[in-house]
């Protein structure tokens, strides 16, 4: 296997009030690759990302990023290490304009001019709609456009790892295809991505490595290509298969 993974989770447990959600998650995200985290809903995918970002405290286990422990750090400090997080509900600042959302995401820039022009143009090429509604409050954008803005915010400054939570959720097929194209271009720049997804088509199009999580535990680890060819395995892990535990 290549050098030590950029991100590693070992035996991570989390509790949300009385709920015990993650039951010892082990996960590795190699640098420069897209790792897809698949699983039925309620399996703990979103909680895994929130735990990495420190939004939900891990009650046990270790999380290390580039060799540094994360579980003791506060969310802002984790983000400053170079992690970007695109939450399931996109976390758009509705009252702020598209321009202001992006300016805010560029922590190093005090004014728009200080943002790397090349990156901004690349974003506009990926997501032209953001240029059209540049001055509009982000709240007035459509679902797909909001998703594009959420991802654009993660690209406005170089980040070492992008955590993206179900970008395809609630989007029309045409927009999903568009999104896959955009993320594929991003993948070409060898950006490390941990993608949580239910949409198998998107997962297959983008994923290098894959981990399947169920009831708070990683139940399968492997290469996306292998899983894509093995229909039986897909059904057992993800579909309406009648097997599975009580």
């Amino acid at each position: 296997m290549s050098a030590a993974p950029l991100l590693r989770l070992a035996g991570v447990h989390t509790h949300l009030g009385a709920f015990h959600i993650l039951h010892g998650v082990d996960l590795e995200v190699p640098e420069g690759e897209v790792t897809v985290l698949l699983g039925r809903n309620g399996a703990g995918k979103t909680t895994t990302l929130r735990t990495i970002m420190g939004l939900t405290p891990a009650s046990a286990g270790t999380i290390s990023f580039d060799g540094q422990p994360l579980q003791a750090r506060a969310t802002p400090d984790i983000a400053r290490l170079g992690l970007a997080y695109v939450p399931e509900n996109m976390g758009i600042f509705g009252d702020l304009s598209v321009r202001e959302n992006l300016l805010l995401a560029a922590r190093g820039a005090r004014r728009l001019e200080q943002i790397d022009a090349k990156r901004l143009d690349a974003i506009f090429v990926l997501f032209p709609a953001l240029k059209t509604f540049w001055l509009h409050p982000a709240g007035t954008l459509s679902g797909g456009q909001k998703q594009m803005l959420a991802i654009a915010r993660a690209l406005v400054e170089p980040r070492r790892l992008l955590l993206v939570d179900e970008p395809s959720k609630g989007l029309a097929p045409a927009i999903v295809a568009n999104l896959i194209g955009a993320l594929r271009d991003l993948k070409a720049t060898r950006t490390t991505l941990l993608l949580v997804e239910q949409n198998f088509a998107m997962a297959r199009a983008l994923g290098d490595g894959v981990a399947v999580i169920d009831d708070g535990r990683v139940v399968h680890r492997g290469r996306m290509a292998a899983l894509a060819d093995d229909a039986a395995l897909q059904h057992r892990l993800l579909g309406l298969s009648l097997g599975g535990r009580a």
Partner: protein
Amino acid sequence: MTVAAVPMTVPRRDPWPLALLAALALGALPLVGSVSSWVTLSVAGLAMGMIVFIVASGLTLVFGLMDVLNFGHGVFIALGAFVATSVLAGLSDWTSPADLARNVAAIFVAMLAAMALAAAIGAAFERLLVRPAYGQHLKQILVTMGGMVIGEELIKVVWGPAPLPLPLPEALRGALVLGDAAVEKYRVFAVAVGLLVLAAMLYTLNRTKLGLLIRAGVQDREMVESLGYRVRTLFVGVFVAGSALAGLGGVLWGLYQQTVTAQIGAQVNVLIFIVVIVGGLGSTLGCLVGALLVGLLANYTGFLAPQLAVFSNIALMIGVLLWRPLGLYPVGRR
């Protein structure tokens, strides 16, 4: 399609609350009868509205950003007013001559002193009283109320329990005559200072990174933290700035009333609560419109039906809440 060719469209603001403000002002004209007294009342209303806005703006941002409701915010108003009495008394050689430049300079020194002290006490107030009660509204209400009482009593210890006079500097006494309408000089000054503070605030909120952070934090605190900003320290900054603004407002309110008592904070506290409710918690624009509505209404009813003036604020609050239960400009809570 090259990037440059992509057309840009411009957004539109919600006009209704501003229309309400205009309707109130114009509606009062026929009732008041003479244009001159309408002008006098309107300027008085604007002045009062501006001062209340300065004080209330800190409170609404603090709530918007960290869901903290400071029932003791009024104590900083009293603090500002009393500081003004000491400073202006000390600078009597600047305030007694009818030299506008010196008078205004004296007031600005008083304002700076009031803001500095209010900021320092604000930091202590946040550290001791507010921080241990994050997220627990009942405890916040009780503890900040206790903070108000302690603040008032400490002021009495330092400045004595009796009300103190806060005379206007010479050049700001009396009224300007515009046509046949008499407009008090100090009120024009108060409106001017109010506009200055408003401009500075709008510039900060809309043109600077700090302002973006505050507005975004009010919307979605977790997302702002996920972008790498420490919202907790941002909040303490906003709390201290809010206290300083209340101190500044205290100076203006003290001069407006011309006498200063320790209970000044408690009286104004109720007024700024109404303004913050009417405007919409967490919204600066809402706070401005709410403050102007309260200021104008208070002066108009004070002239037309003094007996009912007390209830004009309550009626306004109930009216707005029936129309928009979350206030004029509800901040979209995610």
